[in-house]
């Protein structure tokens, strides 16, 4: 195949303990470390390995958001992507809009694979890959833990509640990746320098001519209910007593 498109979402770093703003208008993101969504990084790593095996010739990283997302795209380029596309918008687009953006890019780039993280760790939605596959009328292989390419098909192992499911899909296809697919490479300093010279195109969302969705509106945010601090016991006997008191054994 010629091309693989990979989505990279800019999200609050997974080590940050997110807090809801006092006025309930959102979560605190000022001065918070931002990173590539970890699942998207795994998607990129897999795309790079496919290209390095000679099964693809170009890996294109795509982000949708403000110009701040350039930073995550540059990291993707430093990891080894060939070029980047940033679809600029000030609004946080919903998953359906993101799927429509990727659909438009599949028409322009004609990729053999679109690879995305199985979910973004901010909204925890897990929707964009499935929606893109529907709109594109192509197969979806979600929650992938192994991807084997064989000519015009891919054999994908999926992490599902019942265990591991293996499916075979015709290409082009959409793959959403799970944690155990691979371990992303570290970026080396010379690669960061090289990445600065790689092409990064910015296209305003409005220029893509895609339909706006009637979005699900986020009205307000609240902190989750806290669990009460419990008791400490000294030994197994103490634990047994506490369990018996609660009628659990």
């Amino acid at each position: 195949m010629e091309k693989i498109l990979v989505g990279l979402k800019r999200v609050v770093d997974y080590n940050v303990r997110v807090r809801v703003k006092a006025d309930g208008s959102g979560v605190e993101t000022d001065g918070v470390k931002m990173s590539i969504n970890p699942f998207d990084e795994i998607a990129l790593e897999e795309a790079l390995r496919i290209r390095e095996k000679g099964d693809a010739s170009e890996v294109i990283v795509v982000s949708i958001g403000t110009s701040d997302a350039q930073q995550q795209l540059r990291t993707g380029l430093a990891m080894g992507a060939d070029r980047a596309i940033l679809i600029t918008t000030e609004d946080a687009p919903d998953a359906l809009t993101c799927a429509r953006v990727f659909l438009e890019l599949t028409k322009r780039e004609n990729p053999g694979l679109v690879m995305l993280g199985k979910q973004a760790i901010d909204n925890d939605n897990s929707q964009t890959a499935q929606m893109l596959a529907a709109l594109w009328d192509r197969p979806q292989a979600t929650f992938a833990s192994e991807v084997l390419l064989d000519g015009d098909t891919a054999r994908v192992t999926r992490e599902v509640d019942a265990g591991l499911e293996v499916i075979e899909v015709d290409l082009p296809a959409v793959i959403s990746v799970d944690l155990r697919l691979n371990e992303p490479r570290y970026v080396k300093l010379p690669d960061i320098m090289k990445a600065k010279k790689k092409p990064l195109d910015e296209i305003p969302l409005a220029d893509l001519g895609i339909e706006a969705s009637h979005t699900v509106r986020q009205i307000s945010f609240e902190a989750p209910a806290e669990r009460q601090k419990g008791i400490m016991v000294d030994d197994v006997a103490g634990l047994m007593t506490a369990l018996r008191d609660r009628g659990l054994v």
Partner: protein
Amino acid sequence: MAKILIIAEHDGGVLSPNTAKTVACAADIDGAEIDVVVLSDSVAAVAADASKLDSVSRVLTLENDANKHALAAILAPQIASLADGYSHVLGSSTTSGKDLMPRVAALLGVCQISDIMSVEGSHAFKRPIYAGNAIVSVEAPEDQPVVATVRIASYRAVGSENAAPIEAAEIAVELPTHTRFVELRSGASDRPDLQTAAKVVSGGRALGSSENFDLIYNLADKLGAAVGASRAAVDAGYVSNDMQVGQTGKIIAPDLYVAVGISGAIQHITGIKDAGTIVAINKDQDAAIFEVADIGLVGDLFKILPELSDAL
């Protein structure tokens, strides 16, 4: 009035308890009239299970050899075709529901709501984001069907005293052949199902090997509990992926959760927040798991687990 279509989750023979929880969520919507649809190559047994669920008005069946395995690309166009006239289309927030429902939503041209944890109105819901560190109230547009998944850990199953009529549904859609099932590798066990068990014992990286996980299995068997694991234990290869509890694994709400040798990363805590009682056993007294534990015991799990198993 809300006309709700729920996609039955099943393994080909038995209806999943998750569907009874999804029905419970639907029943929270005012004036809900609930239909459950069963897609399978052989619908009879699952449809019979579904017809017993309280609050269900009707069970619809779509029997087709192509529905033998729950492939989203095959099921979604059938559901989208059947969805005409429904105000809500709901599935469980399990790997199969998460795979399927966004595809249904996109075919209907609407956004999807993931992980409903409470119903605030016919088009207003609450759901967790940021690994459960924030809860967001969302509103779906009133002029479109609501397509959503239900966070099953937030609901108790409805009763099964009903006898809803079962009808074969008629649709005419062409199904794709671009997606094919190959196999399911399942770590089938005789223990209770992790997602629905009343008691769960989980082990973490501190177990050190898959052999040592026998200590967890022994304790679980004494308690009649299911067995889970932290991501670290799965990554280390001690146990299989279907045992992972947390943000990207299973979200569970047992009456008793025993976390052994699990440090308590935010992503793990997300998966157990709704548990009745959390017991933590860890040698590090500063482990984050003690922040959420109802009963904590600091010590060496290799000493504590055999003692505890003996005491039970």
